[in-house]
């Protein structure tokens, strides 16, 4: 039957599109074909490049492997033991604290600017574009821009001497007491715009009438912020907070390009990359990755569960 229809369609017109011909296949069969053809490639990609690597990581973390040789020696928990008895590892986690602090500061700055841009203000779009712009800039370009900014003869020191604060001039990236502040502030500079736009989007979705009603009732600016604005952005703020925490632990590009992890600016991901690709110790690097994966995974899972509970 399907065959006859098929032929008659072909005969009727060669210009007729494929859709005139397909309905002759039952919806049940169509469904099977569609589900298979729409899902097979995406699922293959998902398995090969996300799920399998994660599982493989656990296996590799129990082996000694140089990345090339066909044999991987099973070493049990010794990679994990090496990580936990290595004092350098703790300093790497300490470095994340700078980015964590920077990330929190960035969120509050973003919220502050979002509230400003949501109020009656001239040249709103100009300010908004400028403040967001760093986010769309290439990460390596940003790292180079700030290498100049923080260099001994650089922009920051020039500004300091212009305002008569020569005594505050430093080799920002060369001083291990300052380098992480410099790098974390670069990170704030880069990411603040994104948080700002996200907050602003939520603020703009609050109906104007609510604010007007509050004004008529004589609510002060601070109370309006406290009781109307804050509750409505709570959820997005939490989401951003989670991203900040996992971002702080997995920071890579900016310190890698600007200092290569020198002067105590080593981060967990730089250290992992070095362990694998510089020192060819894939087993140890896998164990480090597993730890990072567990931390970030737990944070994300915790946040999801929290959100679900409340809905």
């Amino acid at each position, binding site marked *: 039957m399907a065959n006859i229809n098929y032929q008659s369609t072909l005969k009727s017109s060669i210009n007729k599109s494929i*859709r005139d011909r397909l309905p002759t296949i039952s919806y049940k069969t169509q469904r099977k074909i569609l589900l298979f053809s*729409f899902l097979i490639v995406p699922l293959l990609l998902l398995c090969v490049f*996300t799920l399998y*690597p994660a599982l493989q990581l656990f296996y590799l973390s129990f082996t000694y492997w140089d990345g090339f040789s066909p044999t991987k020696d099973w070493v049990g928990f010794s990679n994990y033991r090496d990580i936990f008895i290595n004092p350098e590892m703790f300093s790497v986690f300490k470095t994340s604290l700078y980015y964590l602090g920077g990330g929190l500061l960035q969120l509050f700055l973003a919220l502050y600017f979002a509230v400003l841009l949501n109020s009656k203000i001239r040249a709103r779009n100009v300010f908004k574009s400028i403040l967001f712009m760093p986010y769309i800039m290439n990460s390596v370009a940003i790292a180079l821009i700030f290498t100049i900014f923080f260099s001994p003869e650089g922009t920051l020191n020039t500004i300091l001497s212009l305002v008569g604060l020569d005594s505050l001039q430093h080799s920002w990236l060369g001083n291990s007491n300052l380098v992480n502040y410099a790098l974390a502030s670069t990170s704030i500079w880069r990411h603040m715009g994104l948080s700002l736009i996200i907050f602003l989007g939520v603020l703009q979705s609050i109906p104007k009438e609510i604010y007007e009603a509050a004004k008529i009732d004589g609510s002060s600016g601070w109370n309006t912020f406290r009781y109307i604005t804050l509750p409505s952005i709570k959820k997005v703020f939490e989401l951003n907070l989670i991203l900040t925490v996992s971002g702080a632990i997995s920071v890579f590009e900016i310190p890698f390009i600007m200092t290569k992890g020198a002067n105590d600016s080593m981060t967990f991901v730089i250290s992992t990359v070095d362990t694998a690709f510089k020192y060819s110790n894939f087993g140890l690097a896998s164990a480090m*990755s597993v730890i990072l994966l567990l931390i970030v995974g737990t944070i994300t899972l915790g946040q999801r569960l929290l959100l679900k509970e409340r809905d």
Partner: protein
Amino acid sequence: MKGNIKQISWNLTKYISLLIGAIVVLIPPLVVLFSSFKTKIEYLNTDKLSLPDSFLNFENYKVVFEQGNLDVAFKNTAIILVISLIGNVIIGSCVAYALGRFDFKLKKVILGAYLVAIMIPSITTQVSTYGIITNLGVNNTLFAPILLYLGADVLMIYIYLQFIESIPKELDEAAMIEGASYFTIFTKVIFPLLAPATSTVIIIKAIAIYNDFYIPFLYIPSEELSVVSTVAYKFMGPFGGEWNVICAGVIMIIIPTIVLFLVLQRFVYSGMTNGSVK
């Protein structure tokens, strides 16, 4: 009167804060822009904030374009971007249609797999992904970043899945009554209505891919496969002592994105807002 003073000082605070914010954002790249027009001697002998002698001194741009491999980098970046973006749109919309409109045995399992995937940041799995890419024989080819941009990030699935929920199922049913096949419903009804999700996915992914350093740095190290990020990273080698030339390179790399951003501003903002509140 008292309220008035309060109002005025709040207004003043607002503008001063925004001005300071704008200056802090603009100064670092502006200094780089100034430096890109300076000669080497000028760069070394003037302070960073001073304007160049001439804004028409394009010598550094010429040097960086001729010796910096930028043409190759732009070409490779464009190839990777176009293929990855098309792939992301196809994969995202197809999976969303299959999972959002049909009930079948494995659906829960697949949704669960994507849920697990979103909790695995690709930066954590690179140590083992590297082995997979090598075994597939695509290491140091443009396929490596393309495959990873398609397979190692599942954000687009979520954006599409969330959006397809808002398209009424009655539209599908109406099309079925007229005898349209599922495939026709997808291409003629669903996909066009998914346009906002498509623009969100394109914008978020384009920014992420253009700015990504990690994947190209690991997987396509060879010179002729340079992309914008890796070519910029290599500036520090040959032009190590000539920061004025590096500055020209930096400006050339950020100009295309800034221009595109200014043109597409509205879409970029809505893309960022839609993509984040998943």
